[in-house]
């Protein structure tokens, strides 16, 4: 271990903290802003030397369950996902509250308020509250490191999974971090209670009572760890409760970071009730600053609105979107000075598919092939190809959640919209598309599924795709007729041929899979991938 500070992203600070605390397995599916956690493990010499398991999972649910299995075997483990990934992992996450853990288990949920790269801005703290599980919410890189390091111990002490909730700004911001001593990995060790992980009703009822009984103890432990801190001040006309990053935006607005009002910084949950009561009883009104949904605000304000509480619900702060120093200044009644307005000459520059991207050629062919059927029948999915919604393509009509393209196309076909088309990427297909395809096969639904295969998880920066070299076999295995699985290379020179193939399959009254296949241009320098592609004979 070196004493020199490391310059790390928030994501990387969490990874390094867990690695130093004796982690044995890291599991994840790529998703902005969580992706760099696993990437840090995969690039780390330390992880290599420590033989830490660190391959991408097929989706967040398989990642969460695999981590739970490693915890069962007594070792320390971590699973990371973006906020909407927790929806996918929710079945395992919520039930892991009842099984509890054996080896320490951290679930990192990276939220994306303001939807920089997401389809909603749900707040993962809701999941933890609903599951009765503890949460750490770091305000800076050192806390992120420390919470991962100490969170594993906390998890083992209380026998429960611990969530670390971060948001985009911390995940993708860089700052210095000081490390703690490297701890050894746990030995393989089965749970003391052999039925701990058997959630038969008779067992689950007992363990649920245990979970309930741990709530007050966790709250007390939270006060002792020092992440929830009460800063007293003379002016009691208002008190401020600041959760997570909101604390930074608050102190940023005062000289030397000294706020003239009492401040309760909340970085650990269950909510520190005694500290909340203290600040509420001492101050005339409360301002609640939360990066995300008004969870504490709703709890404290209540339906009866007994306390004089201000925040996102009464318009003191916007109800939606990410906070920043200016919004918090306004909420505190401070002047917020802006520079010059953006000149009208500045036009928007939305993200676009890269020059030379295979998705572009696939969409150009699909649009022509569909022209005779009319618009409004293309259900798409989550990935770079979602950018096909923008001009000049205007090629898709939906993007909802991972895998929904296939199932929504089936539902629309069931309703009589024939043919219905699905557009999905290779990684998204093995994440959550396969089961939907089975539904369609079993019903012989008249849908055409375009799996645009670029050998990678592109939008998040070119991570491994679990689908590599397996797509035709998976489709055939699920029962798609081999003559209706059509593979071609999406390039300009083959445009007419592509249009012809797509037209033929649109006309087929059953499930067709068409696979435009060409490597993502962003991954051309990836030697590892080039070798695998060659080995599998994919080009």
């Amino acid at each position, binding site marked *: 271990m070196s004493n020199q500070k490391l*310059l790390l*992203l928030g994501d990387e600070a969490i990874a390094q903290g867990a690695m130093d605390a004796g982690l044995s397995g890291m599991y994840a599916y790529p998703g*902005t*802003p969580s*992706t*760099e956690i696993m990437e840090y493990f995969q690039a780390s010499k330390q992880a290599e030397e420590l033989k830490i398991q660190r391959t991408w999972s097929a989706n967040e649910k398989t990642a969460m369950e695999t981590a739970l299995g490693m915890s069962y075997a007594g070792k320390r483990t971590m699973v990371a996902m973006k906020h909407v990934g927790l929806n996918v992992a929710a079945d395992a996450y919520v039930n892991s509250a009842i099984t509890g853990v054996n080896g320490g288990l951290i679930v990192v949920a990276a939220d994306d308020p303001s939807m*920089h*790269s997401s389809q909603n801005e749900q707040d993962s703290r809701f999941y933890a509250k609903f599951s009765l599980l503890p949460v750490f919410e770091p305000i800076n890189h050192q806390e992120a490191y420390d919470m991962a390091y100490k969170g594993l111990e906390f998890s083992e002490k209380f026998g429960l999974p611990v969530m670390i909730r971060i948001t985009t*700004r*911390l995940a*993708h*911001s*860089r*700052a*210095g971090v000081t490390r703690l001593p490297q701890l050894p990995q746990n030995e393989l060790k089965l749970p003391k209670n052999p039925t701990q992980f058997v959630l038969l009703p008779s067992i689950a009822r007992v363990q649920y009572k245990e979970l309930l009984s741990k709530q007050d103890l966790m709250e007390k432990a939270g006060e002792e760890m020092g992440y929830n801190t009460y800063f007293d001040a003379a002016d009691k006309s208002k008190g401020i409760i600041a959760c997570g*990053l909101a604390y*930074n*935006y608050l*102190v*940023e*607005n005062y000289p030397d*970071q000294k706020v003239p009002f009492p401040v309760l910084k909340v970085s650990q949950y269950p909510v520190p009730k005694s500290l909340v009561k203290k600040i509420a009883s001492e101050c005339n009104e409360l301002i609640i600053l939360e990066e995300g949904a008004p969870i504490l605000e709703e709890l404290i304000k209540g339906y009866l609105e007994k306390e004089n509480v201000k925040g996102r619900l009464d318009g003191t702060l916007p109800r939606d979107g990410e906070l*920043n*120093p*200016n919004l918090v*200044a306004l909420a505190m009644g401070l002047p*917020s*000075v*802006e*520079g*010059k*307005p*953006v*000149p009208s*000459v*500045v*036009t*928007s*520059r*939305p*993200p*676009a*598919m*890269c020059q030379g991207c295979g998705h572009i050629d696939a969409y150009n062919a699909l649009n022509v092939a569909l022209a005779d059927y009319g618009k409004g029948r293309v259900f798409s999915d989550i990935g*770079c190809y979602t*950018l096909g919604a923008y001009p000049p393509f205007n090629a898709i009509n939906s993007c909802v959640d991972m895998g929904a393209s296939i199932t929504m196309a089936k539902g629309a076909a069931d309703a009589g919209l024939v043919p219905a088309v699905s557009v999905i990427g290779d990684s998204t297909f093995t994440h959550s598309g396969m089961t939907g395809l089975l539904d369609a096969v079993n019903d012989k639904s008249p849908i055409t599924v375009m799996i645009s295969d670029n050998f990678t998880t592109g*939008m*998040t*920066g070119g991570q491994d795709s679990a689908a590599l070299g397996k797509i035709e076999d998976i489709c055939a295995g699920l029962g798609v007729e081999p003559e209706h699985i059509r593979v071609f290379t999406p390039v300009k020179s083959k445009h007419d041929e592509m249009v012809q193939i797509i037209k033929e399959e649109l006309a087929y009254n059953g499930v067709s899979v068409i696979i435009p296949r060409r490597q993502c241009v962003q991954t051309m320098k990836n030697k590892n991938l080039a070798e695998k592609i060659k080995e599998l004979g994919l080009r």
Partner: protein
Amino acid sequence: MKTDIILAGVGGQGILSIAASLGMAALANDLQIKQAEVHGMSQRGGAVQSHMRISDKEIASDLIAKGGADLILSVEPMESLRYLPYLHETGWLVTNITPFVNINNYPEIDAVMTEIKKIRNHIAINADAIAEEIGSKRSSNIVMLGAASPFIDIPFEKFEIGIRQIFGRKGEEVVKANLAALRAGREFSQKNR
């Protein structure tokens, strides 16, 4: 000491390499930094920015407040204007003048330059031309860093240390080219400020 910098450009233009070099320079001068980046969807050819905060005291917010930036450092002229609400009235706008056109409705470059010239403290530099002149086409980003360096309260030799650390792995030739780019950019700003 405090310098708050908005780095601006288009996804793929490599503003993060400027940020990394600058971060190293700040660390070499024993300063604290926080640097918020954009990853994910916008990296695909969209407008991207990075908030770089350097201070000798602890930094709270990862984001710079609007009206609080001491410097906008942009590798693309139109993008430099997108962040004007962040610029303090005494702050500097340092921008490359080579447009990156990946949209159909990119404005007339003259109209963009007119707006840039309205900013009292501005440096408009043809970083691509300077990089080509010194025989290092790929170093235009470091020309930009050099052009911004007079407005950042860090001794110039620390910038050179930053460059050595970031490019050291790529060999002495690359280091030399980037140091030349850094100096050329700095010289331009000193002559034209």
